[in-house]
């Protein structure tokens, strides 16, 4: 029971970090059908920018998040314009995999060329540093913050997709891109906006999740497949699916690491194999 109470908040927090970063990729893959292994690289750029803003510019934590998100979106524009646009919905997986591996290597190399090959601390504000008394037990305030960020992201995305004009266009384009185009929806603009949204969410998740997934030179490579796996387990394009997959895999991974740390990611990937084998299109995915 004590172990369970110890595991749950960590598992929940880890799952929420996975969700916050992966959900952008999920929407992007659902809409543009692009297997993007460079998603973690954009989360890493966010982490690097936030670290730079906090340690060198001395801004406050919320401002650093803002700088990270906006900065990453700006940095990503040439990638979208020059590279991603060519592979939306068209290319086979192999092309997409290789192109986005190339992008990841390039970003890792450049980031470390500019900022140096050391890990990048993202100091927390005092408010999030200490423990927080839940009544039952104390848990680190940062864990609660991360969980809150995940919930807010999920709700905001749900509102965006279900309640706004952009959401209508997005859903139309997901369901039938050619039809949407024929109805006069400018799919290229929807794609670009979705790409920016995905990258912004990646950066946001990269910064707030830095306590659990530390920002370091090989971040983009270390987590290259993690986010892709989450999306695949949940089902590309599904917010509910991404949430379910993140929580499930977060739990599998955290429990495994608590109870049998020497097994590493063994339990995480056992869960992945079982789920994907039974639900090849993901828990909440649709066949294309």
């Amino acid at each position, binding site marked *: 029971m004590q172990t369970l109470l110890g595991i749950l908040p960590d598992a929940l927090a880890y799952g929420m970090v996975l969700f916050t970063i992966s959900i952008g990729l999920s929407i992007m893959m659902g809409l543009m059908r692009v*297997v993007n292994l460079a998603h973690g690289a954009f989360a890493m750029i966010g982490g690097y920018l936030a670290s730079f803003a906090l340690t060198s510019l001395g801004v406050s934590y919320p401002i650093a998040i803002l700088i990270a998100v906006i900065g990453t979106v700006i940095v990503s524009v040439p990638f979208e314009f020059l590279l991603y646009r060519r592979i939306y919905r068209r290319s086979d997986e192999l092309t997409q*995999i290789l192109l986005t*591996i190339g992008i990841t290597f*390039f970003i890792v*190399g450049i980031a*470390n060329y500019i900022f140096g090959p050391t890990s990048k601390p993202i100091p927390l504000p005092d408010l999030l540093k200490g423990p927080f008394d839940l009544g039952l037990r104390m848990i680190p305030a940062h864990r609660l913050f991360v969980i809150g960020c995940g919930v807010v992201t999920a709700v905001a995305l749900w509102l965006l997709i279900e309640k706004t004009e952009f959401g209508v266009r997005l859903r139309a384009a997901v369901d039938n891109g050619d039809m949407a185009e024929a109805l006069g929806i400018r799919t290229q603009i929807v794609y670009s906006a979705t790409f920016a949204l995905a990258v912004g969410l990646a950066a946001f998740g990269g910064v707030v999740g830095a306590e659990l997934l530390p920002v370091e030179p090989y971040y983009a490579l270390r987590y290259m497949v993690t986010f892709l796996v989450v999306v695949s387990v949940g089902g590309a394009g599904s917010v509910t699916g991404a949430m379910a997959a993140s929580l499930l895999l977060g739990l599998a991974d955290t429990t495994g690491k608590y109870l049998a740390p020497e097994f590493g990611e*063994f339990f995480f990937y056992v869960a992945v*194999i079982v789920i994907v084998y039974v639900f090849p299109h993901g828990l909440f995915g649709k066949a294309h």
Partner: protein
Amino acid sequence: MATLSVTSAPQSAAAGLRNDLIAAAVIAVVGAIGYFVFPDDLAFLIRVIGLAFLVISLDLVTGYCGVATLGHAALFGVGAYAAGNVCLAGVTDPILMLLTGVIAGTATGLMSGLLVTRFRGLPQLVLSIAFGQLVAALANKLSSITGGSDGLAGIAPGPVFGVFNFDMFGRTGYIFSVIVLLVTMVTLLRFSRSPFALMCRAIKDDTLRARMIGVAVYPRLVVMYCVAGAVAGLGGALTAINTGVVGLDSVGFERSAEALIMLILGGAGNLWGALIGAILFELFHHYVSAASPFHWMILIGLLLIVVVLFFPKGLVNEVTRRIGDLRQRRAAR
């Protein structure tokens, strides 16, 4: 009449034999050049040959069958660990070690193939990743047979055929590796012209159409995965024999991803492309990485982007196509 109008036919048996001989000669000559021109870099060349097996194996499933995989190093690594273990257990004959690697690789290929070729697209890719990561996690955990993060060390193979001892300069190891590569390449080039391999290419082109001419696709792809496993396991065993150690990197994700990059640089669907891709990548890595690992990453990233966008068939196929065009233009003149 109708028969006469068939202008040129697919390869005849005689032409096939000629190709085999040319292939053997090319590998022997290039191998000899490596031996005499770079006597101080034999260790590096041996490493390249070992990796070439992995890339050639990957070509069999990716280039010939269209399977997108990022977990192929598992087949290589398990072969290496198996060969290392039998050696430590007292079976030091290099040929038997190679055989062990082949068997272990085939078995791993079978398991991997059963899982990975069940689906296409994203689930296929993710299952390949998960399989690779699972094997890597197990290799880390089962330190009694893998040495864990320290690696499996102290592998000391006996002399080849009981005569040729492995020397510290890698001369025996290099010659041994070139010969194994030569035999494998010639065998696989034959294999690549077989009806079986031709049908795999057909499956890659259009799986439903292949079913419609009566092919049971899934079992075939699993068999191809076993062949690929044998080749990768052979390379793993060869590397274990030559280096005396097997580390976790030999099953790792980076190894799988690099193999895919090497394949695409050279050209998928062409065994020579796979071989040359491995050599080019390692040479490039050798010289650039020495300067700075991050410069290396920037350059390989750029190179990969350029190749994918502008030479999607790989450098080897691109060069042969250009030469073909040139010849045609000359003939037309």
